[in-house]
């Protein structure tokens, strides 16, 4: 009995500790990103890594998402005889939900895991300690460019996802199923409002921050993990954790933002 209580308390403390650590990490990273001098070259490299090199994956994922969405909506709408709503349905679903969430998930898988293991290995090989010894602030040197690059790249990727998704939807709806092109696009232009677009991009901004924040913090605090072994095993465990936690928090945040903004 005492043993059960002990374990419960232990894991609660661990949770609170980790939450506090992550929050302080975020505040410090933002503070060092906001202070000049800015490191444009590093930022450029990170935008290239997180953003530009994810673009191809995003384009493929977005195209197929748009296609399958159009297919499913067509099949549903045709039963009610309102196929003319296809364009609106595809665009709204894309802009408000699917594009921000799927983009964030793809970025977690492609860039987030890499960020986490990169920083984790640096921590495990004491490279970060070496930086501190040389009076180089690792927050400013390593983390701030990644965080800013995430916030810049994810909304841009989301916009690519939406555009290519609409093209995919158009391909299935108009080219394959012969829905009127005018109905598809006019319906879309008239139904989608600025509020929908604002909602999609608010989501993607927050997701961009969330993804880089959680994955880099998990790697950065590798040595403080409760059951953490340093070295290969520790890095692999912490990367798995980071991907899981980041994905779950993107999905939770998605619901919260929708509930607040609708």
């Amino acid at each position, binding site marked *: 009995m005492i043993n059960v209580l002990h374990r419960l308390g232990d894991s609660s403390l661990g949770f609170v500790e980790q939450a506090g650590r992550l929050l302080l990490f975020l505040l410090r990273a933002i503070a060092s990103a906001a202070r000049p001098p800015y490191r444009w070259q590093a930022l450029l490299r990170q935008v290239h890594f997180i953003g530009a090199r994810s673009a191809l994956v995003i384009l493929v994922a977005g195209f197929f998402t748009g296609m399958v969405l159009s297919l499913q909506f067509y099949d549903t709408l045709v039963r009610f005889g309102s196929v003319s709503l296809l364009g609106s349905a595809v665009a709204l679903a894309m802009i408000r939900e699917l594009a921000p969430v799927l983009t964030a998930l793809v970025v977690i898988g492609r860039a987030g895991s890499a960020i986490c293991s990169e920083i984790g290995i640096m921590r495990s090989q004491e490279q970060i300690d070496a930086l501190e010894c040389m009076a180089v602030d690792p927050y400013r040197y390593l983390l701030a460019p990644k965080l800013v690059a995430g916030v810049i790249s994810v909304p841009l990727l989301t916009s690519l996802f939406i555009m290519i998704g609409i093209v995919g939807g158009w391909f299935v709806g108009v080219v394959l199923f012969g829905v009127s092109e005018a109905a598809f696009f006019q319906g879309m232009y*008239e139904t989608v409002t600025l509020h929908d677009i604002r909602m999609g991009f608010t989501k993607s901004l927050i997701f961009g921050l969330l993804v880089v924040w959680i994955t880099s913090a998990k790697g950065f605090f590798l040595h403080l993990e409760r059951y953490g072994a340093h070295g290969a095993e520790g890095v692999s465990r912490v990367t798995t954790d980071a991907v899981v936690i980041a994905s779950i928090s993107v999905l939770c945040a998605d619901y919260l933002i929708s509930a607040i903004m609708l």
Partner: protein
Amino acid sequence: MNRLTIETYVGLFVVAGLAGMFFLATKMGNVGVFEPETYSVSARFTSVSGLKEGGVVELAGVRVGKVQKIVLDPAAYEAVVHLSLNKNVELQEDSVASIRTAGIIGDRYVKLSPGGSDLILEEGDEIIETESAISIEELVSKYIFEGDKE
């Protein structure tokens, strides 16, 4: 050479992303970048049920403006609708504004019908002649209960 390609890729990526955002905001979000100049007039209705801000204003079936703001006049228990109309559309002072529905379950919109007066409405003027929103449920219940009385 290697650094140049990174920069080119990033530049391409940023331009493509921003172009997408720009397209979304202007074409779908109707942010006024290419919008013509407008002037605003108001109109009073006893009911605007279902009409939304940002709704379409049509004249002869052509889109000529949008619903800017809907407020309640607490003294008269009437809704005051502010419409922003394209500058090139001139409306006579006795024009009629009516609230219609596109299709059976479609959006509510404001339909303008031209009048015959010589006076042209200007910025801030009010359209006097209006027809309010017709509620199908009210119409149906009216017929049912009238039938009962007879």
